[in-house]
């Protein structure tokens, strides 16, 4: 609470400092500012380009739809442009501070009638940021999806520089980083496990998403805490003009949402729910009584815009997977997040944003049995306060600065017997605590008409706190015969270990001409919390650990170069980026590490280095009847961990040399549109046995190197057609049918290879039981699906 009070005082005093006109001593300047929103729903639009003639300069709306420009008095022509929206031009005469709120019409509302303007978004070329990709949510819905459930994570896995471990998984790997190195935020709250049904689907209900941005590099100083990427997902604010209901039914799940004004144009709400119904079908099958698999997501958001200077929102998410087996075993897991945000405009040039965030991930395993019954709980919670400022002293200079503090609690496991005649005793692993703080400052400067730069630094401080008993081991890396030589009891709040790091960030854009630019970026990222997982795909039963005396923070340095070119009057975007990333203290584990319920997990940690480099090409078309992208990635990631693989470098689990993706949607007519995906990737590395040996009745595999083999290549084609039966302008009722086929040519794409004793299809051992065989597992054959959705 003290921190919050201090922040409020600081915030208020900063308001008076930054209210001073920086140019007052020299020439008088005025500020033009406002919010940009969607005309139909009053939803704020992020990253809208504001272009100022005759200055040939501009600004971009921030993540709250706010823009601010401070200019010399005079007459200007402003052009507002945004992907999928019609451009708006305004003539203004700036002779005082001016507030100009803009409402933009989306292309969709005007159907195909809009002619493509020749001044369409050229932001990919002009913005300083590189390695940043926005996920076109509207297009994701038209693309084919597994079982008809559109999923942004599945689309993200096809973007250049991103790989996946295989289909049916929700983890993604950015530029050679592990799955736990992505900071995934929903309305600024981190989500720790994005998977439903072990990754078949993600927790993001596409119907309520406003935007999703993936940063693979050049990450702003405002963000930190993960090495590889930032995925920032924002939900819709809710229609502030009229009540709207929508829903859909797919092969897998049903969704419904309701949004509308509470006070017209001032306050709005949105509520959304999604539920899978596999369990309801299973209930009808007598043999599967008590067995069921289910997931749900609930999203809610309240928005209140008191006036242009003060806005609040409260956003909450809760989702859960519940798996039951024959009434005697149940496992469930889920995330809960809450975000409260206050946007405050001190004056036209100083924008402040105060955010309180709570995030919780937990899982439970429960077995019902008189003897072997137990309930196992694990969770982690975090409480954050963030105070961010954006200062717009001139159109050539923007400054962002702020403070973030997070208190973390980790409860890696608590087992309580629940049987009357139990063989177990209550056992609880020590909880862990940490305080994570950062101060950041970042500037964006237009040095000349051609050169713009972003630079800044983030100072992060991480403290592993008590209460906890820390053991001293004779040899901390001996996971078999560890000997505890001493133990130290730390009191509540006492600092056990402390880590501080400056994280410099730099980016520059040099405009070659109107349609092309060169970009460069460097960033250092530090990650203080570590996922305790030694599998390729994390599972929901993996917990996290803070950096500690036995676990150093992970660090990464990345440089990237890019060439950006827009073609044919900005209707086509092309980019080429090359990167090199070197990471230190990458967290790995000893061979056969026991990462579940291990009080001495410190003895299983192995940290080392990883290097990755690659080339990413992207060609994208965002306007017109034909939209979509083609991407190609060439990349290599090697990991070197002392004692793992005899200290020799080995390819990372998700290292794929080549990957190619093509995603297209085409509007055939106002009623019909079609979409298709094609994906190709080099098979992921896998460790296969180089021999076997007999021990008793067992035949154990002998391995000679980590990830020495590769699965066969992965490729797949999916298609979909979307039908809008009656798209009348006047009618509010709209409904849409999507028909699709996943894996059109029925490719048996390898998921994994495992080995077993040679046996027939019934499981009877063939031969003397010493023979073994390798089994290739593949997930989805050709799968048709239908989704029906409505809106009114």
């Amino acid at each position, binding site marked *: 609470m003290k921190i919050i009070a201090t922040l409020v005082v600081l915030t208020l005093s900063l308001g008076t400092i930054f209210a001073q006109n920086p140019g007052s001593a020299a020439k008088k300047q005025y500020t033009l500012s406002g919010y940009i929103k969607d005309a139909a729903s009053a939803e704020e639009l992020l990253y809208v380009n504001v272009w100022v003639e005759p200055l040939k300069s501009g600004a971009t709306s921030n993540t709250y739809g706010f823009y601010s420009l401070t200019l010399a008095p005079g007459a200007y022509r402003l052009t507002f442009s945004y992907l999928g929206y019609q451009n708006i031009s305004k003539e203004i005469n700036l002779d005082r501070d001016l507030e100009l709120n803009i409402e933009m019409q989306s292309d969709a509302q005007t159907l195909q009638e809009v002619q493509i303007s020749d001044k369409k978004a050229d932001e990919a070329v002009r913005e300083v940021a590189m390695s940043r990709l926005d996920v076109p949510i509207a297009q994701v819905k038209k693309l084919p999806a597994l079982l008809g459930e559109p999923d942004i994570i599945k689309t993200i896995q096809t973007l250049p520089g991103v790989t996946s*471990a295989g289909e049916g998984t929700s983890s993604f790997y950015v530029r050679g980083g592990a799955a736990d190195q992505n900071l995934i935020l929903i309305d600024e709250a981190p989500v720790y496990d994005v998977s439903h049904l*072990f990754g078949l689907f993600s927790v993001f209900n596409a119907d309520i998403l406003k935007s999703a941005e993936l940063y693979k590099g050049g990450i702003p100083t405002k963000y930190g805490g993960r090495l590889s990427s930032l995925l920032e997902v924002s939900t819709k604010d809710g229609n502030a003009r009229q009540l709207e209901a929508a829903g859909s039914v797919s092969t897998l799940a049903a969704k419904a949402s309701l949004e509308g004004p509470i006070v017209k144009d001032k306050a709005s709400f949105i509520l959304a729910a999604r539920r899978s119904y596999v369990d309801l079908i299973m209930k009808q099958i007598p043999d599967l009584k008590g067995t069921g698999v289910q997931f749900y997501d609930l999203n809610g958001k309240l928005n209140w815009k008191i006036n242009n200077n003060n806005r609040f929102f409260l956003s909450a998410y809760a989702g859960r997977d519940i798996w039951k*087996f024959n009434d005697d075993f149940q*496992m469930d897991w889920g995330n809960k997040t809450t975000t409260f945000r206050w946007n405050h405009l001190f004056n036209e040039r100083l924008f402040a944003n105060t955010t309180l965030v709570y995030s919780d991930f937990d899982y439970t*395993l429960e077995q019902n049995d008189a*003897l*072997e019954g137990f309930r196992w709980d694990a969770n982690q919670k975090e409480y954050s306060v963030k105070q961010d400022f954006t200062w717009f002293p001139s159109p050539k200079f923007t400054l962002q600065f702020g403070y973030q503090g997070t208190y973390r609690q980790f409860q890696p496991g608590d087992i309580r*017997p629940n049987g009357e*005649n*139990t*063989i*177990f*005793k209550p*056992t609880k692993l020590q909880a862990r605590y940490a305080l994570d703080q950062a101060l950041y400052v970042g500037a964006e400067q237009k040095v000349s008409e051609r050169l713009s730069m972003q630079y800044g630094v983030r100072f992060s401080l991480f403290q592993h706190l008590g209460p906890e008993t820390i053991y001293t081991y004779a040899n901390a890396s001996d996971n*078999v*015969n560890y000997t505890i030589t001493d133990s130290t009891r730390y009191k509540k709040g006492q600092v056990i270990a402390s880590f501080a790091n400056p994280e410099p960030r730099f980016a520059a854009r040099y405009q070659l001409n109107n349609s092309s630019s060169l970009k460069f970026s460097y960033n250092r990222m530090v990650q203080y919390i570590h996922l305790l997982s*030694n*599998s*390729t*795909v994390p*599972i929901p*039963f993996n917990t996290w650990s803070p950096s500690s005396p036995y676990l150093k923070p992970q660090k990464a340095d990345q440089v990237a170069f890019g060439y950006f070119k827009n073609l044919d009057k900005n209707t086509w975007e092309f980019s080429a980026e090359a990167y090199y990333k070197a990471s230190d203290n990458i967290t790995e584990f000893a*061979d*056969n590490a026991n990462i579940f*319920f291990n009080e001495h997990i410190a003895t299983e940690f192995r940290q080392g280095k990883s290097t990755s480099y690659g080339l990413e090409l992207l060609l994208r078309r965002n306007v017109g009847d034909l939209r979509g992208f083609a991407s190609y990635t060439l990349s290599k990631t090697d990991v070197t961990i002392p004692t793992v693989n005899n200290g020799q470098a080995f390819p990372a689990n998700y290292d794929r040399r080549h990957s190619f993706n093509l995603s297209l949607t085409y509007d055939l007519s106002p009623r019909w549109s079609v979409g298709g995906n094609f994906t190709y990737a080099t098979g992921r590395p*896998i*460790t*296969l*046995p*180089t*021999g*076997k*040996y*007999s*021990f*008793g*009745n*067992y*035949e*154990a595999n*002998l391995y000679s190197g*980590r*990830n020495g*083999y590769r699965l066969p290549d992965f490729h797949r084609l999916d298609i979909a057609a979307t039908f809008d039966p009656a798209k009348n302008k006047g009618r509010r009722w709209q409904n849409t049918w999507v028909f699709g086929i996943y894996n059109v040519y029925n490719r*048996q794409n390898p998921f*994994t*290879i*495992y080995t077993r*004793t040679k046996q027939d299809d019934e499981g009877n051992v063939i031969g*003397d039981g*010493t023979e*073994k*065989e*390798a*089994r*290739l*597992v*593949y*997930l*989805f054959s050709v799968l048709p699906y239908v989704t029906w959705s409505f809106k009114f």
Partner: protein
Amino acid sequence: MKNILFALFALLSLLACEKTIQLDLQQLDGVLIVEGSVNNQYQPQVVKLSKSRSFGSTGKAPVVSGAMVRVKDDANREFRFVEKEPGLYVSEQAFAGVAGRTYTLLIESEGKSYTASDKMNNIVDYDSLTYRLDEEEMKDPKDSARFYEVLLFVKEPQETEDFYLFNFYRNGKLENDEGRTIYFSEDKLLNGRIDGLPFPIYYAAQDEAKIEILNISRNAYKFYSDLAANLGNDGGMFSGQPANVYTNLSGGARGYFLVAPVATATLQVDK
């Protein structure tokens, strides 16, 4: 947790299809595989030596003959082993391992030396076995006539850190799911009384049920838990990365030299 992972993988397999494939694998020279033990019974103790072989090979493992095998304890007693059958080395004299003593295996074979040590723990103090009819199993037995459940009663000493290996026999035959399941446990989650824990297999009337409980060392527990992970690995997707099993042998050999007391209990299903 490992069982859950396996269940998860099995569940995923419902969605998935699979097929047997031929792997084009690197061929490596065989390494020495040791399967040796010293227990608390006064008897000739046994060490088996064999070689590893290629993954796709058929037939029994090639045995290693002509090795010199000895076991020493930490009281300077030495036991010589003689090759009774090819690859099967038996101590010249019968001896019983003594609780608290450390035993070291020394092997010289094909010009190389190998050693391994393990420590003898105290014997498990089990109570009794009983049996009962499992009515649900009787309705739909997996194996006809086998629907008797045998229950174990045993005390678990809470003051010591213990690790256990279990062997289940039916009429003298070891039943461990045809080499696919290993029954082992650590005691950190167990309370002091195990009352009526059912065997993992069913028995028919007149069957003889036998259990062996070995109180193994932490190293041996690591060996068996790694072996279970090695046998049940899914290719590193949800389970950890496939890896070699821990061994207590030095010199590049694999396998394990197990020193552990065996507690045995038998019961006749006298129906």
